[in-house]
């Protein structure tokens, strides 16, 4: 029901929205919870296990009951707090966790058999019969369990990720946070002030206090204006600090557009990662419920939340309200309600000898022992002294005291400490270095105390920053927090809820202890208390108290469960903002990308690079057609392929040769300018790391190539070797992979093609195999390397990247005129397998130089990375798996990579395994499949027949072991 003259909502701006398909109207500034309350809606959801009717419990993000679905289609989000979600025109919301209408949930039958679903029910009930799990229990549970529904499409809504930096981060915009921000900003610090709700002020907006003789909300407005005047504060409202991480890094979610109708380009939420030099935590406190029988009915809520609804939203959750309190603070609610003209039935206080704060009926030493009302509270039973009586009420505010919101202080591993004076956990000193708690989150509940602690926390932060502290004047405010005395549970008949979302009652916790799950972490998992939406915010201390009572230990000895980020749930789409789809990994394109995609080439990923699989001609319907044609084209005429993705590292320095000698197993200091050499690199453990060619362009000037995927790792390796192991060497190097576009031109007509683009033609005598040098290409300075990965006469020509696109198109056009053309990675792979050249398919991290037949490349004349380990006896034994070639000889002609090798008569089992296949291809040159693999004692088994078995694909093929070089073993073609 709306209250006249109350609240900070904008009554000039009505807002229409939907809940469960029905239209409702509220005002701008309302949350879904306050707007539904104004419309008299009490039932907003169902509980998780028993499907009990649930109403709004709180007025903040800690809400365990009023969880709703928001939005439509793939943009729909589950488990949104109705107490946080602001209404806007056209907002679509619905309740969760029921089958059929909310009012007549079919699964509320669970409520009639609570013993069946008691603590540990998952672990006990569904154990037998075994076969029932998959077919019966799991589908039924999955249908009934889970809160909310997820959509299966990608969210169409945009979210963002941002990095923030500040001198002082202030978390919380209540009295402590405002004073901390003001102190820090006036002292010259750059401040970010974060507030979870839409407006700064927190409890000052709800409690009807005076500050400096002014209504608190006016003081808040003046303070915010003063903050803005400093020019040093970034005020972030609708922003929840979700986690504290190492080095004063904080995660936060800013609700940017989720309170507005969909606006193009406006993100729904923004995930902030904030690096603060110092921080002040002023996160306030959360009021805790009391576990009395049937305390879960709609209409029963937190006493402080009622004040918030009255004073911030101008709405009352009931017309006849009772309060059940253990402390003075809750009496404020009665006062505020009476001030708003709402009928306060009674205040039921568990303590003795207390005074009423206003004109209402007060019951001392009294407790609520039961309630009535199926879909909303209608009546409560009170026990006072020896007598019991009933009260009619449609709303009951309860308050079991306050728990400091200390979560963030525990996110990096600190444990809170018990403060017996306030019966609550408080942050341990220096829980996080540089994070200074202030106000209610450290157990100081009076407003004057919060204001002054805000100043002092900021002063600590400023001192750590070496800044002079300029303290603002402290305003006058209420300095009494009021007395409290703990009451965790009410001893009376009936179920008393601790965790409203997960339906955990005091009985469940007692049962857990009785069955041996007495540790707090065990109890949590056994009962599911504090799991899922609540995360212990409302239920934790109550459950601990019950557990402590059963085990006979105190609450501090019982301890708490672990506080982990995030403080509030974060939508995955928000946390992963920017990383959906193509945002997940950047794409690297070669300069020939447009030319090959224009030809319809399917692209394959090589690390972050995209390279063409093949370049289909019209009429080709299968990749093998294109691939076979391209292989034959290279063998008979000429082909062109972009090889720019290979890592290119340019090396300079007087000791560059010595540096290469140390990196590679073979000798490079003897390489003459104008010559190229193939090199092998090991890891320090003696296994092959990478291979490639390095060219000597001039004395003390080399350019190295690495395999595409290893480029980054090799660069880091070289930096380590240079800085850590050989700082004595005069050498400098840098990656030039993206600076040069490089194309391989391969085939018997390669030189003929090149001479059509080079300003000065070359011949075989002056530019023999493994030669390199500077050239001019259509007047552009380029580099030419005579190297071959196909076994053909081949060159790699490099030009500055800006000319890559033009040169690629020119080379391909000229190749086509010579009966050749462009080719792709599939053909490249076939050509190299025909020649027995290895790639990372073979040098996969577990092979040695010995295994790939390159033992001879391990120089005896110098030290190199991996040399000592390569002499380990175990790495040189003949029965190691060594590189061989394979060809099919039986009826089955197919080879598959990943298949394993067995003796022909052996069972294909693990113990009989003799090796495996790493690369296969259909060779159009030879007319059959060929493969490379590793076989125990392989070189000595050339000529033998074995069988390969691919258990995964169900292929068994008889093969002959052969030399890995299938084509032109003498290498004459490359030299021609």
């Amino acid at each position, binding site marked *: 029901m709306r209250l006249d003259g109350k609240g900070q909502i904008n009554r000039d701006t009505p807002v229409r929205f939907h809940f469960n398909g029905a239209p409702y109207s509220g005002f701008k500034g309302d949350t879904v919870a306050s707007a539904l309350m104004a419309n008299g809606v009490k039932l907003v959801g169902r509980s998780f296990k028993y499907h009990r009717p649930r109403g709004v419990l709180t007025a903040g993000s800690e809400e365990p009951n009023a969880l709703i679905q928001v939005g439509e289609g793939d943009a729909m989000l589950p488990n949104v707090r109705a107490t946080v979600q602001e209404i806007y025109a056209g907002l679509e919301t619905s309740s969760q966790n029921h089958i059929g209408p909310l009012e007549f949930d079919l699964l509320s039958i669970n409520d009639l058999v609570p013993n069946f679903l008691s603590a540990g029910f998952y672990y006990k009930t569904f154990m037998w019969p075994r076969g029932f799990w998959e077919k019966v229990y799991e589908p039924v549970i999955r249908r009934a369990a889970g809160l909310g529904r997820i959509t299966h499409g990608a969210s169409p809504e945009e979210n963002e990720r941002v990095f923030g930096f500040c001198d002082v981060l202030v978390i919380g915009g209540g009295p402590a946070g405002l004073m901390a921000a003001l102190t820090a900003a006036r002292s010259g610090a750059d401040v970010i002030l974060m507030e979870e709700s839409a407006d700064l002020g927190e409890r000052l907006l709800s409690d009807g206090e005076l500050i400096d003789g002014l209504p608190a909300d006016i003081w808040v407005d003046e303070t915010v204006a003063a903050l803005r005047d400093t020019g040093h504060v970034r005020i972030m409202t609708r922003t929840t600090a979700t986690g504290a991480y190492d*080095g004063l890094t904080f995660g936060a979610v800013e609700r940017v557009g989720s309170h507005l109708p969909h606006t193009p380009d406006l993100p729904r939420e923004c995930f902030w990662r904030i690096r603060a030099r110092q921080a002040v935590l002023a996160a306030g406190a959360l009021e805790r419920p009391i576990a009395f029988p049937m305390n879960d009915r709609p209409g029963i809520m937190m006493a402080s939340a009622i004040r918030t609804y009255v004073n911030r939203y101008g709405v009352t959750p009931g017309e006849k309200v009772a309060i059940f309190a253990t402390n003075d603070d809750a009496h404020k609610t009665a006062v505020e309600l009476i001030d708003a003209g709402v009928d306060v039935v009674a205040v039921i206080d568990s303590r003795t000898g207390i005074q009423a704060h206003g004109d209402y009926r007060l019951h001392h030493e009294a407790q609520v022992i039961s309630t009535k009302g199926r879909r909303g509270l209608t009546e409560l039973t009170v026990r006072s002294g020896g007598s019991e009586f009933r009260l009619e009420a449609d709303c009951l505010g309860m308050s079991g005291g306050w728990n400091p919101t200390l979560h963030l202080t525990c996110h990096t591993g600190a444990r809170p400490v018990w403060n017996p004076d306030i019966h609550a956990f408080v942050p341990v000193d220096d829980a996080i270095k540089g994070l200074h708690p202030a106000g209610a989150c450290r157990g100081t509940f009076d407003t004057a105390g919060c204001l002054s602690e805000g100043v002092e926390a900021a002063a600590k932060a400023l001192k750590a920053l070496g800044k002079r502290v300029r303290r603002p004047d402290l305003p006058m405010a209420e300095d009494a927090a009021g007395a409290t005395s703990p009451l965790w549970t009410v001893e009376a008949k009936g179920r008393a809820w601790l965790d409203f979302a997960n339906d955990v009652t005091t009985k469940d916790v007692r049962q857990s202890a009785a069955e041996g799950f007495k540790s707090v972490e065990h109890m949590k998992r056994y009962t599911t208390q504090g799991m899922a939406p609540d995360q212990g915010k409302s239920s934790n201390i109550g459950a601990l108290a019950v557990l402590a009572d059963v085990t006979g230990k105190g609450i501090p000895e019982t301890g708490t469960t672990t506080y982990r980020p995030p403080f509030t749930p974060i939508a995955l789409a928000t946390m992963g903002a920017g990383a959906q789809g193509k945002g997940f990994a950047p794409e690297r394109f070669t300069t020939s990308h447009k030319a090959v995609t224009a030809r319809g080439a399917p692209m394959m990923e090589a690390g972050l690079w995209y390279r063409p699989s093949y370049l289909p001609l019209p009429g080709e319907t299968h990749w093998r057609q294109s691939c076979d044609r391209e292989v034959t084209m290279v063998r008979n005429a000429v082909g062109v392929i972009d090889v720019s993705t290979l890592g290119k590292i340019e090396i300079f320095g007087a000791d560059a040769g010595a540096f290469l000698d140390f990196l590679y197993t073979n000798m490079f200091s003897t390489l003459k300018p104008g010559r190229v050499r193939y090199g092998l690199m090991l890891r320090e453990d003696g296994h092959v790391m990478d291979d490639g060619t390095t060219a000597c362009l001039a004395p003390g000037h080399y350019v190295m190539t690495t395999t595409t995927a290893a480029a980054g790792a090799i660069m*880091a390796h070289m930096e380590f070797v240079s800085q*850590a*192991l050989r*700082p004595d060497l005069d050498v400098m190097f840098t990656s030039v992979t993206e600076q040069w576009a490089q194309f391989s031109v391969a085939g018997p007509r390669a030189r003929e093609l090149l001479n059509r683009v080079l300003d000065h033609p070359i011949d075989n005598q002056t530019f023999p195999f493994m030669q390199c040098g500077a050239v001019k290409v259509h007047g552009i300075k380029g580099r030419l390397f005579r190297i071959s990965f196909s076994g053909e006469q081949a060159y790699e020509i490099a030009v500055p990247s800006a000319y890559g696109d033009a040169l690629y198109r020119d080379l391909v056009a000229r190749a086509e005129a010579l009966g050749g053309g462009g080719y792709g990675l599939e053909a490249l792979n076939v050509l190299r397998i025909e020649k027995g050249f290895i790639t990372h398919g073979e040098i996969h991290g577990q092979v040695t130089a010995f295994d790939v037949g390159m033992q001879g490349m391990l120089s005896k004349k110098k030290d190199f990375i991996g040399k000592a*380990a390569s002499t380990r006896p175990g790495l040189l034994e003949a029965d190691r798996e060594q590189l061989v070639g394979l060809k099919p000889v039986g009826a089955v002609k197919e080879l598959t990579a990943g298949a394993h090798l067995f003796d022909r008569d052996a069972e294909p089992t693990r113990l009989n395994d003799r090796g495996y296949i790493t690369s296969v291809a259909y060779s159009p040159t030879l007319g059959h499949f060929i493969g490379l693999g590793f076989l125990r004692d392989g070189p000595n088994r050339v000529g033998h027949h074995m069988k390969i078995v691919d258990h995964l694909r169900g292929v068994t093929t008889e093969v002959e072991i052969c030399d890995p070089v299938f084509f032109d073993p003498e290498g004459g073609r490359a030299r021609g």
Partner: protein
Amino acid sequence: MHINCPHCGDRDQREFSIRGHGTGLSRPKGETWSDDWNDFLHIRDNLAGRIQELWHHGGGCGAWLVVDRSNVTHEIFGTRLVSEVRS
């Protein structure tokens, strides 16, 4: 976690990658397999507490650093360039 690179200043952890314990700097002499080589490659004390680790500022200047830090609290006590540690 943030690491103070002597070249670049205080930078986010994600610009760095870890290689392992600082033992990696003490490459043994000798070009054949030995107990020293075995220790160097394979044997680590794996202490919980203050340790010296090798980190690479690959997302920055490319420097290799020795980071003196606690693997329990993640507190960093200091960073040095490996080239300076060696020389």
